[in-house]
């Protein structure tokens, strides 16, 4: 199992460590629900060094990325980021990812840990003959996230040459952080809060981690594990590969049309025709479910309507923000309207769930 540059600090902090996507990662440092509340009210620090980071550089970098991902890469201004999926010819996603436009023909991809190797193989396979370098920077770099309403105040003291509050959502810049020049800082995250993601050389990981915890002390910053991260992203209605999307769940019915470009100027791309067909004739929709019962929705539970199995739960969590149990699920279109009641079935027992609009939580609401 792989270790991030912060691994030993997590262990020393008493984190519960679990295997995750081939890495030994902290699932929680303390109570998960407290970690969720801290990020919603204050600020949290996440080690995301397990995520895959790949730099594509060269004359064909843009053209190749355009062909491989669902979003319109050519329309991303330099210094901006878009979310997209990497799909097979049949439209089914191999992964979802962030696409950073570093320069006209330089593109930085951030992908899921568990899929990094498969993504790289896919990219290389389609790059044969193309003029570009494909540089897997995952192990040479560390990736941290600072998330929460107080994250700008917590992080700013360490940052030179960039006013964090001036950085727009899904924009990035390079700045000096803790004395390290040229750190990639993006206004992105997976929590639904204001927040930033930082990328810098792996060997600086422990020092920057500790300096952020010290700098953000007054803002109540603390390390947050992957358990709380999963709850935060589900509350914010964000998809997780292996749950809302995977090789059996396409991005259209997952409600990710915003990340899929059918614009003519984008040209043909892998999965386009299949996803156009799905968009023309969707059968099911990803919905939120809430349940006042004590059982928590879990991936794989069947949803029944009367005596008919109509859908499946793909994610679930105890939500301290909404003070109820929440989940996301696929239901046929005629049962996907908010307010519709279905039952989730667990080993023969049933509990009523109500279809709810996604996201459950929005900072601006």
């Amino acid at each position, binding site marked *: 199992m792989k270790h991030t540059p912060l691994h030993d600090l997590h262990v020393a902090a008493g984190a*519960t460590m679990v295997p995750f996507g081939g890495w030994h990662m902290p699932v929680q440092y303390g109570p*998960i629900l407290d970690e969720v509340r801290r990020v919603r009210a204050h600020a949290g620090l996440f080690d995301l060094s397990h995520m895959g980071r790949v730099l594509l550089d060269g004359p064909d970098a843009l053209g190749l990325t355009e062909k491989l991902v669902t979003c319109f890469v050519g329309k991303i201004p330099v210094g901006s980021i878009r979310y997209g999926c990497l799909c097979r010819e049949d439209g089914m996603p191999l992964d979802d990812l962030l696409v950073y436009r570093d320069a006209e023909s330089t593109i930085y991809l951030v992908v899921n840990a568990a899929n990094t190797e498969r993504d790289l193989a896919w990219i290389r396979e389609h790059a044969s003959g193309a003029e570009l370098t494909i540089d897997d920077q995952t192990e040479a770099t560390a990736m941290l996230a600072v998330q929460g309403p107080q994250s700008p105040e917590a992080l700013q003291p360490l940052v030179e040459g960039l006013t964090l509050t001036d950085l727009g959502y899904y924009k990035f810049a390079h700045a000096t952080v803790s004395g390290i020049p040229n750190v990639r800082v993006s206004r992105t995250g997976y929590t639904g809060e204001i927040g930033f993601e930082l990328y810098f050389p792996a060997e600086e990981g422990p020092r920057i981690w500790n300096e952020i915890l010290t700098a953000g002390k007054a803002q109540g910053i603390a390390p947050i594990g992957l*358990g709380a991260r999963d709850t935060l992203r589900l509350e914010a209605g964000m998809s997780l590969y292996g749950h809302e999307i995977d090789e059996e769940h396409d991005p259209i019915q997952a409600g990710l049309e915003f990340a899929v470009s059918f614009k003519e100027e984008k040209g043909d791309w892998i999965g386009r025709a299949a996803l156009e067909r799905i968009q023309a004739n969707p059968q099911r929709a990803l919905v939120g479910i809430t349940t006042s019962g004590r059982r*928590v929705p879990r991936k794989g539970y069947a949803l029944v309507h009367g005596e008919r199995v109509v859908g499946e739960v793909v994610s679930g*969590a105890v939500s301290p923000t909404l003070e109820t149990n929440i989940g996301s699920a696929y239901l046929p279109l005629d049962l996907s309207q908010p307010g519709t009641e279905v039952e989730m079935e667990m080993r023969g027992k049933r509990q009523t769930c109500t279809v709810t609009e996604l996201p459950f939580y929005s900072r601006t609401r």
Partner: protein
Amino acid sequence: MRPDDRKYLESHEWAKLDGDTVLVGITDFAVGELSHGNIEDLVYCDLPEVGRQLEQGETFGEIESVKAVADLNAPVAGEIVEVNPAIEDHLEILATDPWEKGWMVRIKPNSKSLDHLLDAEAYEQVVTEAQGA
């Protein structure tokens, strides 16, 4: 070492003879694994109806934490004759006293022998290995 007045399953249930019946609960290790020491992390415990017949090893219930669901397995075959009514609304009992007040079900066993189960020493080995993993 854990109490040696009872026997254990590798899946972290305990079984204790009490007259003609067997009390069944889960160990402090199981509670710790599910709750990570934070009792708020336990959200639900599903226990069976009185009268249900169980095979040895059969799943008779589930215990659920914020992030996981674990099966509760029967250490002996028999009939459920009593269910601890306090557990459902007071999951904290499982953390404060898993050995006595935290019993979950009382089974009238088909056979009173617990010889097929692990003794406290063998169970300690299971815990040590689980901690090392």
